[in-house]
């Protein structure tokens, strides 16, 4: 069944890439769609020429300073940069683009603020934000760490600080949410997609004991997951810690049937689902070889 479902996802990505169409009008060439389509095809070794085109399309979106913004007229929305780097991962053809993007991310991090007493997390350490000049949050920090690990920068002080952010944002009872742990003394609630991404990024950074409660949360939540973003990161987060769910393919198929209810998924989501069904999706959290 795995090959069948992965094949369906791959065919969908190829069809969309060839036609330049998408589920929603006007979002096909959004950089996150290009990036996840490239990753989703690449991890299955499918359509190498098309993957190269997708990577080239990302290159064309890259600014001189290395960032890949959502749109040229939303310069601060450079959150797709780390996703583009994951698409270019280890590809020597794009070594210059990777260097530029790396430099950008090393020099553009989240805003820190003086520690407010009502907020539980450490607001004085730098991770990465969704949008330039705003605070650091879990998902962009985790994605950026994975991208920088792949560049062999695990020991870079900026990367170490990003790791510290994710450690600091893990909820006391396990799991991660978007990035607020406690507010006015109340512990906030974990979220599966954030937990999955963080577990991928922290694979070689935390011990099994340290993530036990997070894994327990995600495994419990996984049973209920059907929607593509949470499901794909849920699968990848568990897989990163040797707990690949045996029913992952079945769950992905179930997720695809939800399109009967909601309409076609955007390409980024199809790419993520395809990525989650590979054995070693961008060697989750791993370093450059």
């Amino acid at each position, binding site marked *: 069944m795995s090959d069948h479902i992965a094949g369906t996802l791959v065919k969908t990505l190829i069809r969309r890439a060839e036609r330049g169409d998408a589920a929603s009008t006007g979002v096909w060439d959004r950089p996150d769609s290009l990036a996840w389509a490239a990753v989703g095809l690449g991890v299955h070794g499918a359509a190498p020429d098309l993957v190269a085109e997708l990577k080239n399309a990302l290159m064309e979106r890259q600014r001189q300073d290395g960032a890949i913004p959502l749109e040229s007229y939303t310069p601060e*929305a450079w959150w797709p940069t780390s996703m583009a780097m994951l698409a270019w991962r280890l590809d020597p053809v794009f070594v210059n683009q990777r260097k530029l993007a790396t430099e950008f991310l090393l020099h553009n991090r989240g805003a820190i603020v003086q520690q407010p007493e009502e*907020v539980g997390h450490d607001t004085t350490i730098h991770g990465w934000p969704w949008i330039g000049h705003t605070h650091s949050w879990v998902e962009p920090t985790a994605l950026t760490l994975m991208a920088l690990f792949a560049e062999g920068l695990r020991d870079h002080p900026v990367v170490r600080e990003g790791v510290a952010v994710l450690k600091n944002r893990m909820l006391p009872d396990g799991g991660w949410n978007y990035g607020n742990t406690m507010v006015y003394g109340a512990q906030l609630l974990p979220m599966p997609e954030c937990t999955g991404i963080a577990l991928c990024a922290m694979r070689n950074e935390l011990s099994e004991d340290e993530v036990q409660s997070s894994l327990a949360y995600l495994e419990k939540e996984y049973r*209920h997951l059907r929607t593509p973003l949470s499901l794909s990161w849920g699968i990848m987060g568990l897989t990163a810690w040797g707990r690949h769910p045996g029913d992952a393919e079945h769950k992905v198929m179930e997720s695809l049937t939800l399109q009967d209810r909601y309409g076609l998924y955007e390409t980024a989501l199809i790419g993520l689902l395809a990525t989650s069904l590979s054995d070693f999706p961008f060697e989750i959290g791993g370093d450059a070889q």
Partner: protein
Amino acid sequence: MSFSFTRRELLKASAAGVAIAGVGYPLFNWLFKKKEPVFTAAVGGYDRDMLGALLDGFRELGVTPEEIRDKRVLLKPNLVEPHRGAGQINTDPLFLRACIEAFLTLGAASVAIGEGPGHRRDTYYCLETTGVGDILHEDKIAFADLNFGKFHKVKNQANMSTLGDLYLPEAVLDVDLVVSVAKMKTHHWAGVTLSLKNMFGIMPGSVYGWPKNVLHHAGIEKSILDINASLTPAFALVDGIVGMEGDGPIMGTPVNSGLVVMGRNPLAVDATCARLMGIDPRKVTYLIGASGWLGSISERMIEQRGELIATHQRNFKLIDKIAAHRNIRL
């Protein structure tokens, strides 16, 4: 982390607001002291006749069929951060269904739902977990993910914050009527979250981040005013059937307040909700900041129709250590 206005800024808000043309509030009415009607219905649960209550409300508000007929309507619920078993966080799906039916009954050409959840990127998860997905599917209602759809630059009509021009989703710009369908809740940064604060969810996360962090950096309260001045909801419908007290907007506890509050003017609706919650709208910074140009919070400027505030007022629990909750009790 203070978000409050200075006295100078409050004066600026009023002055700027008066100078603004086309912000949606009927300035003429304000100048001539016409009262803004707000309707409150007692609805004991989500199994009660919510549609009847809403249709009564539209009638009491003097809404004519011409205002709705053949209009494309987008309802904006609050689906900020769903969790299983925590229905008090989000607009209830059955209430949302009643709102859909009300607009269709009044002759709307189409009714769609649009939301850009503030804390979650997985919008489908929000729909599935809240039960709104079932409503969309069963009633064949279109949904727009406001976090990820196309967006366009729109002039910031108030410029109270540092946001500058706003990027708003095409889905909200392409309809005739945007309706805020909020939840009645306390809020640990803003005091209360009602129909005005609910409009944070129209701002695309792909541009403003999660948890809509650009708006926080620009000032939560001033951003609320900018957004509502630039895209004023045509109606505000508040689900106060089960509200939230204490540490809202997520970690608070449910309150069976049994109320639906609605009106044309979101500020008047929010002021009424605040009073029903035992909170003085004149002590909630962004409500006082909006008063005088986005509407009025003054009791004498709001004509209460339907249920009386005094009959249904209950003190929603506030938490002393939360700065935005201090000294806002009626």
